[in-house]
């Protein structure tokens, strides 16, 4: 080839290199925006899986791994599922089933001997769900799942369940029946007017939908919405919601008037190393009260009153901190008292007790109360009182019951001076409970002739109209 031709070729080569770089710079962002896999992490794959993943079979490998995870579910080998869930979601970030199932698995399935879930995993479950929502923002599903975890599992800070459910509701593919949940979220968040407007909106849509869709499910959904709306209107009326909004229509005493003193008191006794008994009083006769009980490191990171900062970002950390203790349980009230034994001695990884000091929290929020009890207490605790432990600070615009007690590690582990002495911590007003003589499952229904024989008169404050008369039953 002539030198002149070679020179031309070199020049053409240089021009082409510049052109290629320019085109790459312009087109590559378009590719990334439209076609790039959202996440892809190949660490943790075996060599054969790695080869397949390299070759572009990410979704296939994800499917194979998920089948393997399914077998672990059957065997109850829950720990083995966690890394697979993570790997599958990294390989194929569009596996909504894996995100949803993995989130539920992490949030609910890691339990101790007493079937209490390990709350240290909740931030991880939320992080996974939020990642799933971000990677699958074309459908409502993961937004709904995250909202549901706030609503059902965390069961507090309801503004989060509202925001996630509202986001899910913006999608057209959301199943009609699932749209009803937002109504409950609004109510638990104290946004009753919004709940009412939303229910009317749902009913309008359901009726229009029923005209176009003659399927039974369309009629059933419409009837459900109507039933929910009726219940909401009755509750709003009974709880004086309308009357308070228009004083000229106030007809008298409503269920939430004359706040009822629940007479809360509690005592925690360490009966043996890592085994505690929690007893106390709660002067509400109708069955259905569950008081939240938390025992945690006094210096637990991200702790909030009666909980923790559940949303700790989008980092999916599969191993919870091994040196932190956070127990959360429910104290079920029967016969105006509670008496629960909590054994933490068999689950070393869940309750490591490394810290020196521990905080015990008792928390009751009417927003998560059973409906028949909420009828007396109201959505925000306006019908509830307690002369010792009513708290209006830890949850803005809400009246909740909240108090704390303290124990040390030596007390919980029964070491040192506590080897022979029985440690206990109690509220100042605790004066003991009388356990029902015929067994703890027996519910004593008070008669018209006087208070229940199962409860010591004087132990339980009888102020207000709830105990014994059934007045607060709604």
């Amino acid at each position: 080839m002539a030198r002149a031709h070679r020179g031309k070729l070199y020049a053409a080569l240089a021009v082409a290199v510049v052109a290629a770089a320019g085109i790459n710079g312009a087109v590559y962002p378009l590719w990334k925006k439209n076609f790039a896999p959202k996440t892809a992490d190949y660490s943790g794959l075996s060599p054969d899986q790695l080869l397949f993943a390299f070759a572009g079979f990410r979704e296939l490998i994800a499917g194979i791994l998920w089948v393997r995870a399914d077998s672990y579910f059957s065997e109850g080998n829950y720990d083995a599922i966690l890394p697979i869930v993570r790997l599958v979601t990294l390989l194929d970030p569009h596996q909504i089933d894996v995100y949803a199932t993995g989130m539920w698995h992490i949030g609910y399935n890691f339990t101790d001997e007493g079937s209490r879930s390990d709350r240290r995993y909740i931030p991880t479950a939320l992080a996974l769900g939020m990642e799933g929502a971000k990677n699958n923002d074309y459908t409502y599903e993961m937004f709904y799942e995250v909202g549901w975890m706030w609503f059902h599992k965390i069961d507090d800070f309801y503004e989060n369940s509202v925001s996630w459910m509202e986001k899910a509701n913006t999608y057209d593919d959301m199943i009609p029946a699932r749209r009803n949940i937002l109504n409950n979220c609004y109510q638990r968040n104290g946004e009753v007017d919004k709940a009412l407007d939303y229910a009317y909106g749902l009913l309008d849509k359901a009726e229009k939908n029923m005209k176009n869709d003659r399927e039974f499910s369309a009629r059933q959904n419409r009837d459900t919405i109507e039933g929910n709306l009726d219940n909401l209107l009755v509750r709003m009326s009974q709880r004086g919601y309308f009357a308070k909004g228009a004083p000229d229509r106030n007809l008298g005493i409503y269920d939430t008037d004359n706040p009822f003193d629940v007479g809360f008191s509690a005592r925690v006794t360490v009966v043996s190393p890592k085994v505690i008994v929690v007893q106390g009083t709660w002067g509400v006769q109708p069955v259905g009260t569950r008081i939240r009980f938390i025992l945690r490191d006094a210096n637990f990171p991200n702790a909030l009153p009666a909980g923790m900062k559940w949303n700790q970002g989008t980092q999916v950390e599969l191993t919870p901190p091994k040196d932190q203790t956070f127990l959360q349980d429910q104290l079920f009230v029967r016969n105006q008292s509670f008496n629960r034994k909590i054994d933490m001695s068999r689950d070393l990884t869940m309750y490591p007790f490394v810290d020196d000091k521990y905080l015990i929290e008792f928390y009751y929020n009417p927003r998560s109360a059973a409906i028949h009890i909420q009828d007396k207490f109201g959505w925000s605790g306006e019908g509830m009182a307690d002369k010792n432990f009513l708290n209006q600070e830890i949850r803005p615009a809400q009246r909740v019951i909240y108090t704390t007690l303290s124990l040390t590690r030596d007390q919980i582990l029964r070491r040192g001076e506590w080897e022979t002495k029985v440690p206990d911590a109690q509220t100042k007003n605790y004066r003991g409970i009388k356990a029902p003589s015929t067994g703890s499952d027996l519910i004593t229904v008070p008669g018209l002739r006087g208070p229940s024989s199962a409860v010591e008169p004087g132990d339980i404050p009888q102020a207000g109209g709830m105990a014994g008369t059934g007045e607060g039953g709604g």
Partner: protein
Amino acid sequence: MNVVLSIAKTTTGEAIRRRVLMVILLIGLVLLVVAPGMEALSARQSTTVLRSLTLGVIQLTSAVIAIVLTVYLIPNEIERRTIYTILSKPVQRWQFLVGKYLGAVAALALMVAMMTATMLIVFSVVGKLTLGSDMVDLAKVPLMFFVQMSLLAAVAVFFSTFVSPIVNFFLSGGVYLLGSVFSSLFEVLSNNKELPAMVQAGARLVHSIVPNFQMFNVQNSAINAGPVIQNEQLYYLGSFGYALVYVMILLIAGILVFDRREV
């Protein structure tokens, strides 16, 4: 031009007659036919898994065909001394090289088309495809694989002008991996401010020099439901242009090397 086309035609004919390529193609076709059997891997997302598998088979098979087809193009001619017969006629070396490349690309197109047709037939038979836009959207993916493999073939042709077939096989395969799987890694490294400047610069250099093969991977949108593709025409035009320019770069470089080589 006739010379180039004559060489291309002959090369295509030779490629089709090569048994090793036929065996690779046959394996690919068999895998495509049995792919629906993998549906059990995911009850709800069976279509996703099936599409991932079939498109993966086409991509992998095409890559192997592209490399095997082209690494022997020049060395075989030299080894069998047929190149002397060709170059003794009024045929320029660049015409020989370009003709060989075009012939290989035509053979590649034929094989990718066969696999695409098989995939579409399988999808239609198992009821995972509706005629019309769905079919067109799915067919776009193998089309982009073809463009990607044409670029890979150019890489292998360039290397075949100065290295042996075995070395070329691993070199081309390595470049393909660097430009596809590891491209994101180099991009991340080049943008990581915490790394030493030298490492960042090195990663940026590799990311810039190595052909960006992953830019032709559009299967993600065909496998998973997702948002509407934006500026689709611009993307396709741009990526075709990128492939064309890069193929030109490799062929010019190959011509320059081959022109000085003693055969």
